[in-house]
């Protein structure tokens, strides 16, 4: 997933990244295909040379040899101005319009599980041009109805973001899971399967999605990480196995 995610972004782009797998993907991107990508962390780290995986999106690794160590205000204002090409997020639940939940499982008043909430997630999903979501896929997580809409995707369809007052032309772009890569249909803004990982079938993806998934006319197969990528991930980026356990 980290390898596939690292290939979505073009060199020279600006990327506001959340914690966990997105962070690993960007550390890998920086060391392989896209050395000139500008990675931004919400707490104020801009363009760090990530020496080793940060544990928090604000710890000292997020501004190691950076060009600027600034504030959350500065980062979010920069995104609101339109400078940030990509936002990367994790999620507990997603629906067919790419709306995501990181707040609650169950009812708000009596939660079955209380999750951390928006954090910077809503801001990233609202303000970056294209949002990439990296998460696990199963029927509960790829849900027909979210328990809580923390971060806006395309809300209830085409034009809904703009009607709500969100910046024009923004929204979810890719969803990367352990099964494959999804995008969004241009005319309906509904989620669409674009690629599967080697050994995964379209049926496998459907069986792990509660809502009706659009299937691209040609579903491609992603490539496995190269031995060099595997080495970088395990030896340089996450040697303490914070994420890659």
């Amino acid at each position, binding site marked *: 997933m980290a390898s596939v995610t690292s290939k979505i972004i073009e060199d020279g782009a600006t990327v506001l990244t959340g914690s966990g797998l997105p962070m690993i993907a960007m550390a890998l991107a920086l060391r392989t295909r896209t050395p000139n990508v500008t990675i931004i962390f919400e707490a104020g780290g801009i363009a760090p040379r990530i020496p080793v995986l940060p*544990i928090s999106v604000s710890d000292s690794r997020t501004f190691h040899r950076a060009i600027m160590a600034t504030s*959350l205000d500065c980062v979010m204002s920069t995104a609101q101005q339109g400078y940030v090409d990509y936002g990367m997020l994790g999620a507990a639940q997603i629906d067919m319009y790419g709306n995501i939940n990181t707040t609650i499982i169950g009812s708000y008043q009596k939660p079955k599980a209380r*999750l951390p909430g*928006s*954090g*910077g997630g809503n801001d990233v999903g609202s303000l970056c041009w294209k949002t990439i979501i990296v998460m696990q896929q199963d029927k509960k997580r790829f849900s027909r109805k979210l328990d809580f809409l*923390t971060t*806006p995707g395309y809300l209830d369809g085409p034009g809904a973001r703009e009607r709500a*007052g969100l910046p024009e032309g923004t929204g979810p772009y890719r969803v990367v899971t352990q099964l494959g890569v999804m995008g969004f249909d241009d005319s309906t803004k509904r989620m669409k399967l674009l690629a599967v990982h080697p050994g995964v079938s379209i049926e496998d993806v459907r069986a792990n999605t509660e809502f009706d998934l659009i299937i691209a006319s040609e579903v491609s197969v992603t490539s496995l990480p190269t031995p060099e990528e595997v080495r970088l991930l395990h030896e340089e980026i996450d040697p303490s196995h914070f994420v890659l356990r």
Partner: protein
Amino acid sequence: MEVLVKGEGPLLGWHDPDEQRKWVRDNKPRHMTDKRMDLGQAVSRFVRDGDLLAMGGFGHVRVSMASIYEMIRQKKRNVTLSGKTATHDCDLLLSSGVVSRIEVAYSFGHELRGLSPASRRMVEQGRVQVLGEVSNAGIQWRFKAAAMGLPFLPARVMLGSETFTKSSSLVAKDPFSGKNILLVPACYPDVSFVHVHRCDRFGNSQIDGVSIMDWDLARAARRLVVTTEKVVDDDVIRNEPSKTMIPFYSVDAVVEVPYGSHPANMPYLYYSDEDHIGEWLKVSRTDAGTEQYFQKYVHGVKDFKGYLELVGGQKKMDNLKEIELLKAQTTAPWAE
């Protein structure tokens, strides 16, 4: 301006801008006086029953942990927390009974380390009340509005989401563009604690590395306690005035607490103590374990110095410095 929708969340820490100006005139220090005191004094004087509390830093990074342990030691109660990316700080404050209500931007989690067993239990069992939701930019700009002396600020986040529905913001028609726009109300916490790298005896403070929300938070808080790794000579500040993040007139108390962010990270000085955080994540799975932790690390020691000795003393601090400077590798019990 036409108001279209109002969020359901209660309006926390808002004051009419003229009322706030008078409060500033009558209460904030505008002459440079020596504000040094000990932590016990600062916590007992400035944290009151029912206060809205906001901690500086970012959960595990540059947090005034020493003041959190002191609030627990003094058995402060009935505090409302601004959960502005509150992680380890939030976990201890909720499970110790200091905080009984919270507004959530990011709480109950430990980022890569997973979710917080203790604070989630408090919320899921109804022992701590969640008052509402907000995003990180939302809460940051609530502090910014306060720091600017304004009643609100417009922003383009939270729109169309239930994070908005549960917030104290509102959506209005922007009179310039005609588009919908979010308005976040100013937030003046009753008290904040910000941990800094160095400051002088008056409270003029420098922070190395990311400032997160602290430029605005320090100015928004009605009462501000600065805890510092080191109190420096006045000239250190005057030699590089562009490095001053917090001016003396925002500061009500200065407390020197070396390693005051432990077990959280203090950029350039020491990395987060993953052994200690790991121990907390393990013992805090039960109420009994949580209670034992507080008995051992808070009530069982006289002060923060005693706590530092208990977690490994100077040897441990030296090791955390090596890790911070990338001369030693981090290991984490929660990753095994």
